[in-house]
């Protein structure tokens, strides 16, 4: 029973494709792809709508106010209203803009964001696009985001846009390194770049109790944290929203965009967030695996969505809690702390592996990480680096 619920979507797709039985192979293939794309768009655009309103509501609760509550029950139709507003708004293009580039930027950024969703396994047998080097695909395609952001900044021919784009690229470049390197321990341990295999490697339970998710190993936990923080930066969200900090440079590279193009940017940002969270779930939180054996009756995609939702909640929570960081501190942090720590994770994972992945390995890798962490904290003691800040009040 539970199995059939688990595979409900897979069966549904097969049932749909069975209509095409007898057609040439490429027709079935194209149809299968189209179904996947359609489902992805349907699910994630809905999720986008949902999250956009949920974020506002959650933030509001955190700030002790109500949030949107006028449109629909509990304000749930707010995104629809927003969407309509966006669509009917005038699309303004600056006169001296590089029109082609200006137009292509949001297209590219949205396309890239959606493409990255394709390699994530959402449930048992539910990977839209199975590819040998799926993780590499994710990052290869994801790296085009930077180009898109640059195009937006350049194409607008506006100094705020350009500056915002520069900031965005600088921070994305800097954090892409820890982001990718913190994935490497997992790839190393599993021995594969395929997301399905990575999820499969996290099946089972130690002592029949603790799931074998990588987040439960010292190196995995460290890498998970590094990955999440880097992901936060990659999606330009608070507290790392320096490139589009409205109090500083209006809206960064999106300053000259309005209407639907702006909505596209907005959507791309959210979808990028989903993609990073989804990958984090896949890599560290056991993908669609249930956290306990008894709970395996609940379908795999539910678990995936629960984990994704939990991560998204944390993102929102962080946004509601932390103030914006300063750009130089951010860069220092990336190069002087995140990167060495990411490398340490690799070493720790190797230690864990060669200590036969048991309790001993667990402890040793913990020691490695703790030692490096302590050393870095001592070396990076910022008290010595920065002059004490002096506040000048009215004199």
């Amino acid at each position, binding site marked *: 029973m539970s199995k059939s619920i688990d595979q409900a979507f897979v069966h549904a797709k097969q049932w749909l494709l069975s209509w095409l039985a007898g057609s040439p192979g490429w027709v079935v293939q194209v149809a299968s792809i189209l179904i996947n794309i359609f489902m992805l768009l349907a699910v994630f655009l809905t999720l986008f709508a949902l999250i956009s309103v949920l974020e506002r509501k959650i933030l509001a609760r955190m700030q002790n106010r109500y949030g949107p509550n006028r449109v629909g029950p509990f304000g749930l139709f707010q995104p629809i209203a927003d969407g309509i507003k966006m669509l009917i708004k005038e699309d303004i293009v600056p006169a001296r803009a590089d029109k082609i580039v200006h137009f292509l930027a949001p297209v590219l950024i949205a396309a890239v964001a959606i493409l990255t969703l394709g390699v994530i396994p959402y449930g048992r047998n539910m990977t839209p696009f199975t590819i040998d080097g799926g993780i590499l695909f994710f*990052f290869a395609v994801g790296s085009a985001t*930077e180009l898109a952001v640059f195009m937006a900044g350049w194409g607008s021919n506006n100094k705020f846009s350009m500056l915002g784009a520069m900031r965005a*690229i600088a921070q994305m470049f800097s954090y892409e390194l820890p982001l990718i390197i913190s994935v490497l321990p997992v790839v190393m341990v599993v021995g*594969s770049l395929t997301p399905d295999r990575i999820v499969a490697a996290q099946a089972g339970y130690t002592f029949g109790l603790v799931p074998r998710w990588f987040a439960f190993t010292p190196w995995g936990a460290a890498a998970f944290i590094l990955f999440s923080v880097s992901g936060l930066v990659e999606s330009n969200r608070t507290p790392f929203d320096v490139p589009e900090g409205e109090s500083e440079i209006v809206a960064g590279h999106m300053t000259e965009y309005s209407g639907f193009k702006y909505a596209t940017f907005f959507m791309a940002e959210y979808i990028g967030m989903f993609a990073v969270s989804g990958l984090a779930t896949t890599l560290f939180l056991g993908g669609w695996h249930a956290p306990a054996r008894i709970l395996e009756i609940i379908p795999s995609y539910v678990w995936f969505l629960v984990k994704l939702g939990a991560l998204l909640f944390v993102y929102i929570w962080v946004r509601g809690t932390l103030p914006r960081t300063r750009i130089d501190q951010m860069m220092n942090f990336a190069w002087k702390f995140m990167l060495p720590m990411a490398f340490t994770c690799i070493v720790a994972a190797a230690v864990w592996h060669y200590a036969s992945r048991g309790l001993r390995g667990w402890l040793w890798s913990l020691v490695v990480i703790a030692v490096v962490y302590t050393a870095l904290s001592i070396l990076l003691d910022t008290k010595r680096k920065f002059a004490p800040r002096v506040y000048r009040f009215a004199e």
Partner: protein
Amino acid sequence: MSSAAFVIISIFTLAAALAAATLRKLMHAALSFAVALVGIAAFFFLLGAEFVGLALVFIYIGAVAVLIVFTILLTRRHAGKDRGFNWSGVAIAVAVFGGLTWSIVKTQSLSIVAPHVPALTVKRIGQALMTSYVWPLQCVGLLLTAALIGALVLVMEEKR
């Protein structure tokens, strides 16, 4: 390996490449170059070298293209338009193309169809890199480090 895909990809790629070589606006040319690279990556996919294709996208679009646009940005004073076009270059390029095509076409042994080979998995590439190609790999690592440092030193502002 369908010829339809091949035709589409090659037209797409060559068009983008031509645009990259001839567009007057530097930024457009750079972006076209990125598009051409996507086409080449598609070629690699078509040829069954998925990993190389992904690496190409990753490195060229994620890094090189961004570097190029950055450079364009930093040398913006003349970046708007590229004045002057050297037609002798066109002649040489066409001649080279002609020569190459002529020799390719003339070589009959090249008109073969791809044999069936087992899929090239990432694992195999990894194993090759870590066994037979471990020295080149280390050398490339060293080279990249050197290039990184060298580039940094080159662009560093002289302290006054």
